[in-house]
């Protein structure tokens, strides 16, 4: 059973991401959610999800730090991370790749793109 963790502090964005991934959910993928960085890291360590959607601007440890912590831990370093960034923040990209993020999706995101990327990365982690 595969799991995807969605991390965003805004409930409606979490809901939109969950809904974008409904097709995968119907195929048995479990969706987990977290509203801040600390909670996210706890879930990552405990559940070892197959993929993490990670917003950058989240309370209690931002997305970069969560990503870095995940990639620094041998137990979780292979989990792919998709960073969610706001439009046109080139600087974010630089910091994101330093933190070891695998992909970026800019907000407002394209739900179809979210689904397609999730599918690709899940297939690779199988």
């Amino acid at each position: 059973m595969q799991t995807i963790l969605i991390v965003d502090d805004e409930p409606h964005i979490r809901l939109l991401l969950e809904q974008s991934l409904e097709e995968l959910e119907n195929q048995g993928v479990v969706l987990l959610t977290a509203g801040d960085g600390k909670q996210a890291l706890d879930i990552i360590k405990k559940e070892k999800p197959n993929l993490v959607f990670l917003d950058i601007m989240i309370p209690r440890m931002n997305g970069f730090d969560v990503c870095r912590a995940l990639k620094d831990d041998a137990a979780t370093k292979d989990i792919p991370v998709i960073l969610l960034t706001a439009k046109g923040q080139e600087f974010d990209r630089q910091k994101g790749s330093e933190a070891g993020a695998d992909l970026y999706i800019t907000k407002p995101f394209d739900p179809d793109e979210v689904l397609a990327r999730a599918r690709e990365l899940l297939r690779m982690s199988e």
Partner: protein
Amino acid sequence: MAEINLKKILSQQANRDAANDILVLLGETVCIQDTDGTVIMGAADDAAVKHAIQLSNETIGWVCGSDSAGTAASLIASLAAGERERRALARETLERYKELALLYRFIEKIALCLNLNEVAKLVIEETRKNIANTSASVMLLNQRTRNLEIIAAAGKEYSPKTTLKPGVGIGIAGTVFFTGKAEIVNNTSSDSRYVKGANRTASLMCAPLKTRDKVIGVINVGSEKPTVYTAANLRLLNMLTAQAALVIENAVFHENKLKEERVKSNLERYIAPQVVKAIMESKANIVFTPESRRITVLFSDIRGFTNTCEKQPPEKIVEQLNEYFTHMVDVIFTHGGTLNKFVGDMIVALFGAPAKSDTSEKQAIEAAIGMQKRLQSLPSAWIRNNFHTGIGINAGEVVVGNIGSPHHMDYTAIGDEMNIGSRLQSMAQGGQILVSRSVYEATKTLFSFKEIGSVQVKGKNTSVEVFEVLYQ
């Protein structure tokens, strides 16, 4: 749409916790089963009573336990109802969000586009990606022909023009253009407005390209096979066209600006830049079609030019002439004059055309004095020594405007008063400025004059009174 799956609902952390609490509260051997009997939570007991978990009269699972476990079934049913509502809301929200994301990317793509055809192509591309169709086109109103003309199209061909002239079928596009309201026509064969083209279109949508206050064109989307276009499709099309209209308006503006720039740079060769500016800004007062008008005309000629020419190689003469003309035109422009033409070494300039002026006589005299003075102060000693100009100025009614054949038009002036101006010039000695009585009357308080007398002009019965402008 998506069936309510109990297992899925209970995989949500919050729901799972709530269900767990319920089971613990009951404090007995209870389990939750899927519709097909698979245990999702708790432990099964063979002797247990099965209570259906019902959602809108549909059984989505079972709670197995004692008689009182029925309470758990209804509690879990209400959890499911809540989840279903949440999902429905999420689905609805996602649809809106999709539109938002689409619009966002679309705007990003077209916002900086200044090429009209490119904008139209992008609009079509985006429309075709998101709405089922076999063809799509962008039509714009051609201001001159009053036709809606296709500027970009994709898929099966449309009729290239839709005329908007009354009495002719204006089609659905024409109707939308006039009403400014988008339409869905799912069955064109039952719509009398539909104009058949080369290819059959069974269903179509048409939306107006609306700028702030007017409709500039339409966007068509059509399908060969009967299709049911929905209100949601139309909403999306309207959204795209609203954005496209602004960008298209911008592109049209840019194109006109370019055209204007070209006209301007053409004009600037023979009209002073400030006059060109006035022409471009106040279209109302400027007429290029020939009309009768009172203007002042200035003729300037180099005395004994033919003799001068003989003393120099032709290339040298051309070089000196170019320098001389450049300075003279500069002075004419400075005083708001329009360069009419060069004839050999002669310069013809107009004042009060194409931009009207109440002080054209004064401007012409000031220009003439300026020309004489500039000539004396040119850096080239050879020009100073060999070019001596006589200037004649007359004012009166002439026909002025664009005259010529369609292949070659000149902005020029025609009439007897022109001939009088030319005659005055031919009488003027080097350094002399001669004017007619009409010019003298208009400016006698402004300059000093010497009365010369009357001369006969070829082909005219009356004689012309001549005055010389005295200047230092």
